[in-house]
């Protein structure tokens, strides 16, 4: 029974990869066409009727991929009768799910389709690495992980991570476009991307939205550590980097709200804060020492 679920999970993850790949291709075509339309018809300016259909297909593929990946993550959990967050393979497929989920959720309110190319390739790379390098057979949890707090702590950490990375992608886009504008204006294809001010606001709102969740995740982790390891804070490398990420985002929020940083400086600070999260995920999980060594590698 458990084996069937594990196999099913693998098939679902592979299928979702195919869909994300299709979504990537559709996004790439859409971007390429958009470039041609704007360069040939620069007088007519901004006519995207040709590309609208392709863009819709790209988003539809992404939604389907998200649904299949969601099913894959659930099946992985069912195969071991637990939440699917026991090793790094499972963290990665859930992280990819959270990232594309954050993008799709933000897409409902904001015009973010231009970011789809980046999101689909990032998800594809994450899933590829997970399947090829990080894969481990489905197995029960070690005793320290058997706790309700696993659900609370890890799910909030993964969701926060997904949104942080989305804010990072937008901040990076800001810096790129900002440089383009100071060097003589946006090129044709970049004209359809949102204004700098919009990007600036959007990345701030994402961070402000998810910062309390991240705080909650760290506190939930501390409560769990108190019951599993006998102390709520021990400067374990993972805890230290979670703290650094928290401090960096706290500084970012203060810089914006109180000191009034906008634009370039704020975007750099946002990128820095996001990279501490990534570092924690990659470095501490794989090469780090300490108590958070559940990668299974």
């Amino acid at each position: 029974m458990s084996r069937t679920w594990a196999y099913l999970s693998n098939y679902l993850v592979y299928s979702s990869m195919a869909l994300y790949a299709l979504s990537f291709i559709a996004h790439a075509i859409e971007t390429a066409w958009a470039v041609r339309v704007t360069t040939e018809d620069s007088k007519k300016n901004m006519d995207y009727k040709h590309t609208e259909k392709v863009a819709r297909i790209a988003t539809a593929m992404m939604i389907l991929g998200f649904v299949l990946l969601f099913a894959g993550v659930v099946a992985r959990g069912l195969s071991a009768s637990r939440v699917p967050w026991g090793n790094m393979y499972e963290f990665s497929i859930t992280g990819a799910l959270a990232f594309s989920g954050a993008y799709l959720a933000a897409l409902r309110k904001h015009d973010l389709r231009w970011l789809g190319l980046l999101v689909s390739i990032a998800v594809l790379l994450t899933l590829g690495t997970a399947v090829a390098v990080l894969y481990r057979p489905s197995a029960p949890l070690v005793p320290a992980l058997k706790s309700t707090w696993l659900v609370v702590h890890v799910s909030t950490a993964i969701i926060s991570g997904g949104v942080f990375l989305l804010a990072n992608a937008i901040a990076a886009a800001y810096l790129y476009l900002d440089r383009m504008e100071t060097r003589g204006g946006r090129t044709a294809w970049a004209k359809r991307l949102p204004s700098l001010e919009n990007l600036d606001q959007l990345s701030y709102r994402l961070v402000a939205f998810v910062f309390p969740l991240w705080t909650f995740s760290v506190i939930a982790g501390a409560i769990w550590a108190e019951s599993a390891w006998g102390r709520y804070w021990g400067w374990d490398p993972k805890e230290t980097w979670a703290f650094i990420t928290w401090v960096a985002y706290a500084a970012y929020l203060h810089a914006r709200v109180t000191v009034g940083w906008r634009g370039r400086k704020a975007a750099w600070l946002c990128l820095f804060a996001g990279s501490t999260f990534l570092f924690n995920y990659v470095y501490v999980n794989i090469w780090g020492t300490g108590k958070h060594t559940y990668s299974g590698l």
Partner: protein
Amino acid sequence: MSQELEVPELGSVGLLRYGWRQLTSMRTALILLLLLGIASIPGSLIPQRTQNPISVGEYFKNSPELAKWMDQLFLFDVYGSPWFSAIYILLFISLIGCVLPRTIEHFHSARALPPATPKNLDRMEHHTSWPAQGDELEKARDWFKSKRFRVLEKDGSISAEKGFARETGNLFFHLALILVLLGISFSSLFGMRGMAILNVGERFINTTTSYDSLNYGKLFNEKNLPDFALTVDKFVAKYNLVTSSPEDYTLDVKFAKGDLTQSELRTIKVNSPLKMGNTSIYLQANGYSPVVTVRDSKGNVAMQGPVPFLPQDSNLRSIGAIKVPDADPQIGFVGSFVPTYARSGAEGAVSVFPEALDPRLLLAAWIGDLGLDGGVPQSVYRMDTSKMTQVGLKSLKPGETFTYPQGSITFEGYFQWVNLEIVHDPGKNFALLGGIVAILGLLASLFTRRRRIWIRVGKTVEVAGLAKNAAPGLDVEMAEFVAKLKGEK
């Protein structure tokens, strides 16, 4: 006449005031906050004494010069170092200096009424006007009331304000951080943390001498150790048959409180410690203690009992030392215990499963001076064989005896041992409370918008609004307000 430039005299009070203003400025707080983040990086890359003393020891062994130099900079004790403490103490002083005046100010402004309606509303944002019908002021009053605005009504105009929760939440968030820090300091001053290794069947009475290691805070009083005793009744470890990884540890203890007359059966698991007020008992590790009987050449028992061995890998191959200082000459055994025995070409005896399915005790017997009388502390798991000579090697199954010229040793069987960590942490509930308040405060401050709305009714109705911090959403609210006044919807 002096040619010196006239420098305005600051004076010591002025200097202090200047320093205080600098320290409590937002800019300084921000720099200190970032500095705190950066300062905690080295502790995550360099091994720390509190977490990994063995790796620190290796640093000292491999490059003593560098390690000594690093140690002087407290790089092995980053989180207890003066420079790390300096940063966070400065940050918290800065925080207090920033938050307290703001709390007082906020307290006053929360009780004050909103400022009067400005004269020229047409200069404000979201301004609209239309001919008056007559009942607008009443409608506005109702609307403000239903939306819980604070209002000031004067000369046919209303000035309404909402969103104080933003600053309230903000202040609570920062005050809660101070509470967290106080909780942590309280724990480290009045707390204690000790370890004890117990074989199954053994009894532990909570006195300082019962611990294998014990650390406590500067203000902890030994008399505050709660009265309890426990006996290790049963320990069951379950392992995955394929991967050898542990699936469950369950420890049953007979637990007696107070005068120790009544005992009850309690279970301790990895994620559920035994709790008693602010004291908790955690199951931290486990292993095997081979039980041996050592006899001299005449057959007299020189030593008998379980000896805890230290696990080396996930299959619980364990090493240890059996020391018999009372024998003459002194005798000792360097041993290795494998719970499930197998032979591997390169490594010799290995364990292939953590449960004791086919246990072996491998021994090297040594005769000579154990070096225990010199006063130099020795690890109980290791033996200094520099003044000893080896007299034999043997692998034993349970029940077997190894006889060497000076006597014999019998491997009687084994016990499992558990490592209990007993923690008294009186500040953790303050820290938890601080954490919860911090999140609530954060939510209130990030998701509340502070704004003012004005209305003046004369021949025409004029409305306008102002959002602080350029918070979005006021346009929607104003549209709703105007629709209500016009009687639409």
